[in-house]
């Protein structure tokens, strides 16, 4: 059986005056039905760009999909005519964004915004649509949905807005939910609620989730597989328990150490240095300048992705040493 979503060799380039920036380079991963896959990396690693590219949502002029395939149920979304792609967006694939305040239209009531999705994909309108809106809002645990649906986004709290976003994304029972940093803009207590809601809905609808995040705590709680991105490339992929307990790529290991809670009140273990400028990528491994294990080979050639354990791959010459 093929995976629900199969990304193969996805490359996204930005043409700038200083040359081509390879925001995402040769990215491949798969999301199985009903599975949660986390796309992890720090800011600028290309994780959001990759997520937006899957549905060809990059704003025109900002980025160009330079190659690759995005197969959803065997259909290549990158080759789909715009008309067919619109049928996929919002129906087979739902998407939620980081800041639910910004992602809702301030001039329409939230009920209307959900109803628009229903009308668009299912042709529902009138009383039937309204009943479904109430049902959806209730499903994402919005209290008093009949009143809430007549309110505007600014009347709602951040957590409520993210729930409304989810109601919109789930209106057509998608088989895949792309969640781009869904909890980053929320309070910690609300974060947990939203995450457990995503998990519940996932189980109920049998949908898969592609979770874009930099929060390893969130990854641990929700994901089954993890894809780690660094400077636009996949550096490690594997089951969540493997990656978070036995990371094989020094970058992943560094991320974990940086996220570790130091009971002894010691200094936070940061990764020295910073992500290389996209205009001045090193010839070899992009992480080599910051890597404690780097040798001459790492600085000369880009390490290929290779298997290093069951369902576990890493792009590091020295994975065994890590």
């Amino acid at each position: 059986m093929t995976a629900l979503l199969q990304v193969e060799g996805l490359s996204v380039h930005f043409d700038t005056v200083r040359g081509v920036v390879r925001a995402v380079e040769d990215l491949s991963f798969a999301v199985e039905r009903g599975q949660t896959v986390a796309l992890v990396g720090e800011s600028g690693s290309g994780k959001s760009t990759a997520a937006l590219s899957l549905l060809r949502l990059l704003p025109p002029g900002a980025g160009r999909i330079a190659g690759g395939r995005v197969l959803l149920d065997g259909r290549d979304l990158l080759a789909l005519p715009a008309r067919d792609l619109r049928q996929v967006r919002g129906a087979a694939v739902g998407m939620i964004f980081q800041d639910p305040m910004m992602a809702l239209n301030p001039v329409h009531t939230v009920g209307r915004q959900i109803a628009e999705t229903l009308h668009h994909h299912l042709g529902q309108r009138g009383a039937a649509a309204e009943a479904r809106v109430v049902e959806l809002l209730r499903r994402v645990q919005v209290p008093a949905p009949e009143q809430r649906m007549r309110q505007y986004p600014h009347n709602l709290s951040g957590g409520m807005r993210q729930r409304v976003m989810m109601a919109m994304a789930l209106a057509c029972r998608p088989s895949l939910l792309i969640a781009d940093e869904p909890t980053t803009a929320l309070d910690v207590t609300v974060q947990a609620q939203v995450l457990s809601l995503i998990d519940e809905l996932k189980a109920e609808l049998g949908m898969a989730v592609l979770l874009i995040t930099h929060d390893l705590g969130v990854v641990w709680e929700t994901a089954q597989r993890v894809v780690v991105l660094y400077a636009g490339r996949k550096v490690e992929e594997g089951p969540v328990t493997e990656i978070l307990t036995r990371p094989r790529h020094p970058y992943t290991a560094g991320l974990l150490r940086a996220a570790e809670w130091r009971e002894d009140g010691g200094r936070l273990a940061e990764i020295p240095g910073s992500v290389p400028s996209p205009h001045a990528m090193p010839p070899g491994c992009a992480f080599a300048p910051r890597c404690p294990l780097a040798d001459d080979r790492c600085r000369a050639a880009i390490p290929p992705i290779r298997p290093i354990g069951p369902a576990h791959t890493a792009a590091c010459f020295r994975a065994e040493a890590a």
Partner: protein
Amino acid sequence: MSGLALFWRRFRRNTAAVGGLVVLLLIVGAAVFGPVLHPVDPFDMLGRPTQPPSARFLLGTDVSGRDILAGLLHGARVSLVVGIVASLAATVVGLLVGAVAGYYGGVIDNLLMRATDFFLTIPSFVLAIVIVAIFQPSIFTVTAAIATVSWPSVARLVRGEFIAQRDRDYVRACRALGMRDWEIILRQILPNALPPVIVVSSLMVATAILTESGLSFLGLSDPDVVSWGYQIGVGRSVLRVAWWMSAIPGVTILVTVLAINLVGEGLNDALNPRVQQR
């Protein structure tokens, strides 16, 4: 509270705007009911020419012995209709051009904006004269000419609003939900871009009335209707002996334009509460 009630509460706070609105309603009332309450044909020669205001002719007669009050009331209809229709048409065209240019950007934006620049670089009044002179002066051509010279400023404004809105997350979310471009433009972004446009178009009515008056002052108006500018033009030749003949329609234009401007300012304050604190 509904949006309309909130809007009215904000608008009411601006005394000058409320005053302008009252004056404007009086003028609209005069245009609608005046010719019924004062049923005199403004083209009929009814008495001795160049009479000062009297009991029979409340505002006097013009050089051909026509009732100035009747002309003023009929002229109100022309001025208001031309002003409103022209600015509505200009707003619709400007919205379309600006929305498409701002949303799509790139080559489309360039083409549309260079076309807009073409209109913006020609003095608008001169262009209006040329257009009316080429076609026969009539209510329709005058309105069309005013609309033609007015839309570019709306297009510029709308383009700016669309550029500011198009990269917002809600637009991306709409695209992620599978909406078509025109749906996003008309139903999602347009309502967000509308408040400043409403202000500009309401102020544009005042400019359109002035342009119409200027054109008819120069004799470029529909020969079958009386308008305020035409009345000023008629009185011009006897300005030194019968100043009121030009002054009455002149003051009427002044008051109307001022009232519209006050209302426009009030709309601005009520619709854009952030710029209010000055």
